[in-house]
């Protein structure tokens, strides 16, 4: 075990964890923020996506020891009132069905738009590889395009 100082959503946390423990489980089981989801554990589905700095990272395979000083943002820290343009678009387009994968989808979309405010359809497809078994992909795409126009 080792102690790590990590910043999540602007707040400092000292966590005592196995250095190999993926960031996902530190966030969920130690810090107790459960908006970031477990889906596959092998960085395939994207349900666990968080930001480290401005980068979208699949936290289920990212050891806590590799985080360093970069601040982490989870879905809970994306906005104070759920009013980030991407969140707003998600509500307006009524994207979620079961909703489980959506925090990862949103975090992926936010990082994409930050880097590329006007992505082409092709660029959206290339980045949005998160899995949704409910099949909400078309609404996700529509919401990203809407948020892109607004930002």
């Amino acid at each position: 075990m080792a102690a790590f100082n990590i910043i999540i959503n602007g707040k400092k946390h000292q966590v005592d964890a196995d250095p190999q423990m993926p960031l996902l489980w530190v966030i969920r089981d130690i810090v107790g923020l459960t908006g970031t989801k477990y889906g596959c554990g092998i960085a395939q589905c994207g349900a666990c996506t968080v930001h480290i700095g401005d980068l979208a990272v699949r936290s289920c395979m990212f050891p806590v020891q590799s985080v360093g000083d970069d601040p982490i943002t989870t879905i809970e820290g994306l906005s104070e009132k759920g009013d980030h343009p991407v969140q707003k678009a998600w509500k307006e387009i009524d994207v979620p069905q079961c909703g489980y994968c959506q925090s990862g989808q949103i975090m992926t979309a936010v990082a994409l738009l930050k880097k590329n405010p006007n992505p082409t359809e092709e660029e959206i497809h290339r980045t949005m590889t998160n899995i949704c078994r409910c099949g909400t992909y078309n609404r996700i795409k529509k919401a990203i395009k809407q948020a892109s126009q607004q930002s």
Partner: protein
Amino acid sequence: MKEGIKKLNRRDFIRVGALAGGGLFLGFNSLLSCSDEDKSGKLVDLNAFIKIDTSGQVIIINPNPEIGQGVKTALPMLVAEELDVDWTTIKVEQAGLDTQKYKRQVAGGSGSVRESWDSFRQIGATARAMLISAAATKWALKEEMLTTKDGMVVNKQNGEKIPYGKLVELAATLEVPQNVVIKSPESFKLIGKRIANVDNEAIITGRYRYGIDTKREGMRYATVIRPPAFGQVLKSLDDGEALKSKGIEQVLRFDNKIAIIGLSTWEVFQGAKKIKAEWADEGILEGTMDYREKLKMALSKSPKEDSKRKDGNVIAALSAASKIVELTFEAPFLAHNTMEPMNFFAHVKKNGVELHGPIQTPERTRTRIAELLKFPEENVSVMMTRMGGGFGRRLMSDFVEDAAWVSKLGGEIPVNVIWSRESDMTGGFYRPMYSYKYTAGVDANNKLVAWHHRSIGVGAGAASADSFPAGAIPHYQVDSDIYPSPVPTAPWRGPTHNFLAFSEQSFIDEIAHQTNKDPVRFRLELLEQVRTNAVGKIKYDPLRFAAVIQKAAEVSGWGKSKDHNIFQGFAAHFSFETYVAEVAELVKQADGKLKLKKIYCVADCGTVVNLSGAETQLEGAIIDGIGHAMYAELSLTKGKPDQSNFNNYRMIRMAESPEVEVHFIRSNERPTGLGEPGLPPAAPALANAVFAATGIRLKTQPFVKSGLFI
């Protein structure tokens, strides 16, 4: 069916009472038990469907489990429509399991809205009538002079208004009126509108707590190891290394399973990897290749004398036919792959157990757990969380049973038992593997006169005896058989229909091709025969069926494309009382490879309750259906699943998803199922488009193995 008031039976009597903190509640007097009454004999608000407090806050209770099918929004809409309240001001609460208070707390069979259509509107209308009565008393006016608007009773003459909150205390003392008239469809203000999912805010901020997110004081995490192959038993266990692993507290052995209990999810997953266990085969372990041979052999023999349906004489008609058309289709096992893996919280105590988590069948689960742990049912509490997908997997209660055992054997600990994705995918309950064989006879006038459908499934039956084109063909026979196997199978979104529609609609396409008929016109001809002269019993309405087919042809421009690189395929299927027709449109590239571009969908689901929810169910079901038909397969080798995670079990992603255009037939009929019916026609529409483009008939899934796609 005529719109009107359905006479409510005794179980549906509505009862009213005062809220504990002041206000009004209405509920169904389901079983006339005294459990709703406190010691003084006064009613308390436990069985409420509607609560209105003195501030005017309206709370509508959703009794059914939410799996993403949208009931938590749609059912309260039915109540709010009749109650005449501003949707944006109400709150929706999820009820726990309570069969004394609520009926049919199940998510399955696309039945929630279908079953609640009358009763939920009736209770809303009754509450509204009582609020009007209270206002009439207060103002000393006749009820006819009053109406309601957005949570207020309004005097029609002078426009004076009084909010519901000011009337609830008086209303709570009134007699419940009988058979209050419910709205006619023309006056719907909410039903048919686009209403966003009530949990959106909590979901998009990460605040919603799914079952897997359950945290309790002193709670432990656990995971369970099952035999690696179906048909194996646990022979010996060495837990030495696992117990030395960080964060691991206990290793338990129960049934044929091993539970690892510890301080965090990851630590118990790591601990599980250090378990050394020996497993013994209980018999011959079979795999996909073995099943393929067995199913083939079974279909080559004469069917048993227990046909599911027999119209006319198929054998004689086939031998007299001018032309025989025959195709055999095969379906792989499929995993459910809910994005939220199986999990459940359990805390067994001396006298009972608390269960909390994602379950489609809370009532059946409670019975099962009560039997297992030998508690009376009333000592087993079940709280349902919004589920990260169900698709039929959460109709089973195996993972709840595991949680209850782990809590009990672990020393009555509060515990969340969480499956890894690998456990979830390899742990069973699959869509059965099927083989379907169709033989059709066409007479000298090029008319379809005989149809023989034979099916066999691994572990579960496959045929639906009365599916279209039953009723249109004079000689029609359906035979179905089961090949027994230790592989656990379960309903999977659109059970039976999910593969039946693929094979049936592909076969109809093949017959149309071989008889030189347009696939759309051929279906309409068959339906016309049903309308004028149905053979045997039919469960579908040929006119409604024909209407979705015609409209799908119209909106998709069927047969009208001038682009030589675009090919269309047609399919239509009736399931869960809903009619759906779909047209798949694909593009053939210069190199001959195919890419699915778009699916047009027309549905007749009766009255559309929530337009946004209805569209999203169809869009999602179509993408889900295409995804599984294109890419998914769970194969077995010697009883062991070959796939274990999303790196080797392919799920559809955004880049492969077709555009989907949804249309509804305008209708005032009762609402019918919607969570499942969009899925079955998607795969055959695509396969029939592939046939149009290439002349190749796809008979097995996943389609990607054909090598025809980019």
